[in-house]
């Protein structure tokens, strides 16, 4: 509604693109780790504007996409119990488990509520004392402090019917696993701004120190992302490899200590399974012993069963940046957002969904 803002944005974008074009004298493959970046890149058309040598590949930073089907099955098993109300974030609804999805279970009669904030699950528990309320808590560092706060709040209100099925994951251990695997060639990272608000800069420093790669903590506006790309190219030109903060209006180098403190009070790190990446040491969060009574995984005796990926589904390789979504033979034919096979087609932040929704056809932006 403000044409001047648009004009300014356009001018700044072309200035940044000129600078990028000057520095892009040889190919550079950059991974945007976070799904929010993937969507912002597609929505703003950045792929259609970058010089051909600069390639953006999507990483494992979509919490829905990396949740293994076995954990979806656990949540479904819980939701099917007569007394249980399962509370969950919206974009988990359509993720396929081995047999069905939460959306299909809701249609078949299970009590499943979509919530926006973990505190809403606490409220549901308070309002439904005769039911068992289980919050299926999926998310990265961005979400974990709020989940920790909800656990504390349920404790404060003395709600014995509130439980957490924790399916939280941490970004830096996954990046280490990705780099140690060595399968994917990456020349630099566009690092997630929101996660970094919590954890700050230090947890990424191993990327530069041990793997010799640059990283820029980047914001989510189109101009932020263009500047992030520019800063990565500039590091290469100047022969530096370090972690820089582009998103300095929001991210502080030391992160948010209070948020980390509440996370650490409630959760301890644990090994965690990632779809596509397998078991990664120290990459998950489990409730500490003091909160065991709220731990859905312990209270409900939910056996975990490994689920094979559906035949032909290559989400695992997509999540590692090994292939682009259109290289999967199911993409856009057997697997669409309406009838997804793999999780990367489900979440709006999944790379397959982003490629499908924004990236096909016109204008050659299917790169």
């Amino acid at each position, binding site marked *: *509604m403000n*044409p001047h*803002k*648009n004009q300014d*944005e*356009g001018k*700044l*974008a*072309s200035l940044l*693109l000129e600078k990028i074009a000057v520095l892009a004298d040889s190919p550079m493959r950059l991974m945007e780790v976070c799904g*929010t970046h993937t969507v912002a890149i*597609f*929505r*703003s*058309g*950045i*792929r*259609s*504007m970058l010089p051909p040598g600069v390639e953006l590949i999507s990483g494992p930073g979509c*919490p*829905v996409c990396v949740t293994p089907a076995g954990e979806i099955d656990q949540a479904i098993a819980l939701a099917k119990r007569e007394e249980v109300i399962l509370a969950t*974030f*919206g*974009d*988990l*609804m*359509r993720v396929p488990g081995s047999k069905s999805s939460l*959306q*299909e279970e809701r*249609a*078949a009669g299970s009590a499943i509520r*979509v*919530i*926006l*904030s973990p505190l*809403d699950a606490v409220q549901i528990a308070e309002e439904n004392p005769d039911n068992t309320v289980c919050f299926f808590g*999926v*998310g*990265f560092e*961005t*979400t974990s402090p709020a989940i920790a706060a909800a656990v504390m709040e349920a404790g404060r209100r003395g709600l014995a019917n509130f439980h957490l099925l924790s399916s939280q994951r941490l970004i830096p251990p996954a990046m280490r696993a990705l780099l140690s695997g060595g399968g994917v060639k990456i020349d630099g990272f566009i690092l997630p701004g*929101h996660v970094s608000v919590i954890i700050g800069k230090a947890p990424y420093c191993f990327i530069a120190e041990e793997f010799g790669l640059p990283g820029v903590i980047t914001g989510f506006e*189109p*101009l932020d992302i*263009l500047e992030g790309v520019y800063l990565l190219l500039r590091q290469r030109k100047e022969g530096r490899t370090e972690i820089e903060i582009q998103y300095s209006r929001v991210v502080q180098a030391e992160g948010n200590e209070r948020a980390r403190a509440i996370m650490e009070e409630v959760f301890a790190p644990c090994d965690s399974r990632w779809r596509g990446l397998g078991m990664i040491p120290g990459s998950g969060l489990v409730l500490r012993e003091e909160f065991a009574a709220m731990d859905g995984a312990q209270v409900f005796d939910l056996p975990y069963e490994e689920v094979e990926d559906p035949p032909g589904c290559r989400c695992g390789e997509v999540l590692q940046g090994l292939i682009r979504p259109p290289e999967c033979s199911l993409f856009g034919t057997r697997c*669409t*957002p*309406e009838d997804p096979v793999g999780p990367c087609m489900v*979440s*709006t*932040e999944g790379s397959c969904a982003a490629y*499908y*929704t*924004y*990236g*096909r*056809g*016109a*204008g050659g*932006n299917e790169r």
Partner: protein
Amino acid sequence: MKDKRITLSHGAGGRLSRDLVEEYFLPCFDNALLRALDDSAVIPAQGQRLAFTTDSYVVKPLFFPGGDIGRLAICGTVNDLAMAGARPLGLTASFILEEGLLFEDLKQVLASMKGAAEEAGVQVVAGDTKVVEHGAAGGLYITTAGIGAIPDGVAITSAQAKPGDVVIVSGPLGDHEIAVLMARGEFSLQGEVKSDCAPLNGLVEAMLQVCTEIHSLRDPTRGGLATVLWEIAQASGAGVLIDEGAIPIRKEVRGVCDLLGFDPYYLANEGRLVAFVPEGEAAKVLKAMQKHPLGVEATVIGKVTAENVGKVLLHTPIGGHRLLEPLSGEQFPRIC
């Protein structure tokens, strides 16, 4: 599809809703009038052309800022007629009342229907009531049908958009869906956004007075702007090029979208229209719209091209471009 059930996504107005109609309803009732899949069917009747349409209303909650289920039931059907360029002649209204509904609420809904019908200059001329047991109908469901007369010389369909046409929207998008979402209180959101719910036949008449050659008109209800533009591009065999920076969206609406991860181009509206107008007539039509109370904020957002047939291309404010696809299912709030 063997064990598949209907999910809420089939009702979201996007691709799945269309698949539902095309796979189950069209083959069953197939005929030339239905096949057009426009907002109204156009029936030839002794030298006259009548527009005929029906719609059901199941909104929750029954009352929301800027409207209620009764106002919606009148406006929705009047607007479907207006999108064919028709003047409404009469409406019917059928009510499914749930056991336990407060008479006070019913009275308020009926008064609001009366008000909206007066605004539109149309009467409810027939109706029906049924009562179902508690828990079966969310309080109150309404189905309305409407019939309207299409003036001579007016032929508006989704298949008429032509290269060069200018695309105009009548005001900011997404107000209705965000107002209803907030009124539901599910996401502990509060705000000042009011539904845009309004009868658009007066605005369309004002437009037709200055230009009878309007090619396509749609009200972007479920599925939003993106879905309507895509359907017109498909039906007309043309491309649509939209300047993203020109699409009017209120700051509050954009804020809620950012928070939930919703795309505002898929939000439902109940008192907005999208018009495809020949280039030479666009300035006149835009001026006529802006003079009407429901078109004060009307603005040009794009044009029709001969390239990119069947597609909607969006030019982004930073100078990039991308495709705008129809809504694929329900929009769910994202995690982070």
